[in-house]
């Protein structure tokens, strides 16, 4: 792999706190190595800002290996940037070339208010899980792990849905700010497993109700969420969610 360095123009969203107005600010960075990660490029910019006596840019990140779901930048009009099936922290600078201009904004959704600069509040996702995204089993209640065999296909499908890292890119990508992909991943994960079966109906109804309460928009099947999802959560989960919801509401009309 050939390595190279580049000079870039960055336009970054700056916003002091939830209440203030924000705007794009322009910065120059030079000698950026193609081997750096996108966030390491931000580290360089922040060090530069600190040196110049300016405020560094606040952004969320932690694991820097694509699994915690904390990083969340809207890069050149795409959540997590140009690479497929990728998080911001895994994006590397070889995706860009010398002289590029890169625009970086926070996730935008009513349910995700900006905290500062590129940091948003995603606690709405936690509240959706509180509404029913679990199996009600207390510690110590469990039977032997092999007591209930699960077809490999089903287990694999549940795992594929459980890969969701709760980053919120699906919401950011959607013109309606719908959280359906996130919700459908959780509902599918638990609905596909026998352990999730007893609460299957109440779970989906309660979680959907909470999602609506949080102010996420409706799903109009554009598929923008799937395209942006770093974990390739499939749209078929949304179909499953709709099916689950339909069955649950039919049955619960007593």
């Amino acid at each position: 792999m050939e390595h190279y360095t580049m000079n870039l123009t960055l336009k970054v969203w700056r916003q002091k706190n939830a209440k203030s107005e924000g705007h794009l600010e322009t910065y120059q960075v030079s000698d950026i190595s193609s081997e750096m990660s996108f966030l390491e490029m931000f580290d360089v910019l922040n060090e530069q800002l600190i040196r110049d006596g300016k405020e560094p840019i606040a952004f969320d990140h932690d694991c820097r290996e694509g699994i915690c779901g904390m990083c969340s930048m809207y890069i050149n009009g795409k959540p997590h940037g140009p690479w497929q099936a990728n998080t911001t922290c895994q994006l590397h600078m070889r995706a860009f070339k010398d002289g590029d201009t890169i625009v970086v904004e926070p996730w935008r959704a009513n349910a995700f208010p900006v905290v500062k600069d590129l940091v948003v509040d995603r606690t709405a996702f936690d509240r959706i899980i509180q509404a029913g995204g679990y199996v009600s089993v207390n510690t110590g209640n469990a039977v032997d792990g092999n007591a209930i065999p699960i077809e490999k296909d089903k287990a694999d499908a549940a795992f594929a849905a459980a890969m969701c890292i709760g980053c919120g890119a699906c919401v950011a990508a959607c013109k309606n700010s719908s959280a359906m992909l996130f919700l459908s991943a959780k509902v599918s994960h638990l609905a596909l497993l026998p352990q999730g079966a007893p609460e299957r109906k109440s779970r989906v109804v309660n979680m959907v109700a909470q999602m609506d309460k949080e102010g996420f928009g409706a799903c109009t099947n554009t598929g923008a969420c799937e395209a942006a999802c770093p974990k390739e959560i499939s749209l078929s989960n949304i179909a499953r969610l709709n099916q689950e919801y339909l069955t649950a509401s039919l049955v619960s009309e007593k």
Partner: protein
Amino acid sequence: MLDAKIPSGPLENKWTDYKGHCKLVNPANKRKLEVIIVGTGLAGASAAASLGELGYKVKAFCFQDSPRRAHSIAAQGGINAAKNYQNDGDSVFRLFYDTIKGGDYRAREGNVHRLAEVSANIIDQCVAQGVPFAREYGGLLSNRSFGGTQVQRTFYAAGQTGQQLLIGAYQALERQVALGNVKMYSRHEMLEVVMVDGKARGIIARDLISGKLERHFGHAVLLCSGGYGNVFYLSTNAMGSNVTAAWKAHKQGAAFGNPCFTQIHPTCIPVSGDHQSKLTLMSESLRNDGRIWVPKKQGDSRKPNEIPEEERDYYLERRYPAFGNLVPRDVASRAAKERCDAGYGVGTSKQAVYLDYASAIERYGRTEASKHGLEQVSIEEIITMGKEVVKEKYGNLFDMYEKITGENPYEVPMRIYPAVHYTMGGLWVDYELMTTVKGLYALGEANFSDHGANRLGASALMQGLADGYFVIPYTIGNYLADEIYNKPISTDHEAFISAEKEVSRRLEQLMNIKGTTSVETFHKRLGKIMWDKCGMARNAKGLQEAISEIQQLKKEFWKDVKIPGAIDEFNPELDKAGRVADFIELGELMCIDALNREESCGGHFREEHQTEDGEAMRHDDKFMYVAAWEYKADHEWILHKEALHYDVIKPSQRNYK
């Protein structure tokens, strides 16, 4: 000062006897007892959920925006349990034995046996929560092997076991939040333990969004704040992982156990340049199927695929024929360093070795071919089929490697090098997980307990969940049973006021330095000292130098650090500054501990103490103890020794040959 409180009686009865005799708290009283839990990784989330279920009033804290993002999420490879589903000779005793031996005989028998006993319950609990572990075609749970063992006892969910286990614990936690039993405080950082009459009674936490300080009361405080590998700046830990919670507790009287016991993981992606902000682990599970080698010729600059088989040195298989590529981590890391130091390293930096999947791909391809009854197949077809199998097992790890390095590991061998990964040291705790401060507990990686001088792969997840789901729910009752007469203490109590004042003074002091050097720069300098002199190999001279360099660094930090912004706002640089200040103090203690321990054991390798063929040489006569350091004053600690007794296992020199 140190009473480990290990129950008497035969090893296999200790835990059962303890559970049968410990004090209980009746359900009505549990509702009156408040417990503070700092951290929501596997240890904290499982403890919060379990204690909430029991009826205690729990407050849980984490610095990320959601409890689901704790560093545990990043664990890849798997979790051990003595289920013996594979019928390959596993048992509670064997898991216990492997862990004690893997830890180079520096862990307690009593604790480790309990860990092995509850390991099987963990898997059951996780399955019941809906954790999608890997399964075989028959629908039963699948296992893989991990370093330092000869049985297959590791349960996994592709390369993201930590994520799936943490989501399980997080869901259980959120269920308790919904029920009102747990109150969750995310984006909060604990900055002080509040002591009243010699007992931990609460914490001071900072709301990281508003910057405001808060006082929280608890009848007991549990620290589940993770490990301190980031003292080395570069490590596989998440960027935010830090020692602050544990360090504040240490300065309030909690002894720090074996601070120098650090695990350097053999298979990580090598450093690519000065900009490097963290290192990425390539799961140990890759050593199951991958073969590690370097060229037989020094400074060989040919491409890996151009080096013929007979010119490759599979040095682990050569040196350790019995365990081969599956030797424990400390052994594998040192062997890689030895080859690179001797001039056989590969890649541009020459600080790397190859992890090669070519033969595994071919082997799996052949198995697939015969499974499908194909006889006339070309080698290309075999390789295609083999790649599919490898993709299913390790796909996300291979993808990660490719994203970072831009190289395709299905075609060229991966380049790997050891990196700081885990800290076996931590707050000293007794059998009940209580620190030397009454009412203050430490769980998970934050405590020092079960891994001795080296942790075996897939055992940290096991320990974190054992502590949270199955140990603390019993042991905390034994303490809280006597607390039911104590009403909650008002947070207007003098102790809370003065603790808050002290935290606020520290924050102001940091902000007022207004120096010229960024926090990051200090952290990098500390990391370099630690890696060079207290890293994979240590010696007395280097450690002494490191101690004075760190003392100097501390002076500079408090004179010259530059922190932008203000206290009463979202200010990640200020958060980081506090953490680096604590890392600097911890770094000094780690070097002191490493200097004191004049032997090599597990991950602690003192160059002065090695066998003729370069293996670690323990000195059981002098050092068969846990070093528990009590904080006295700046740069001043007192060493307490907890002698280790081996009643069941006879310590010997570890042999993986």
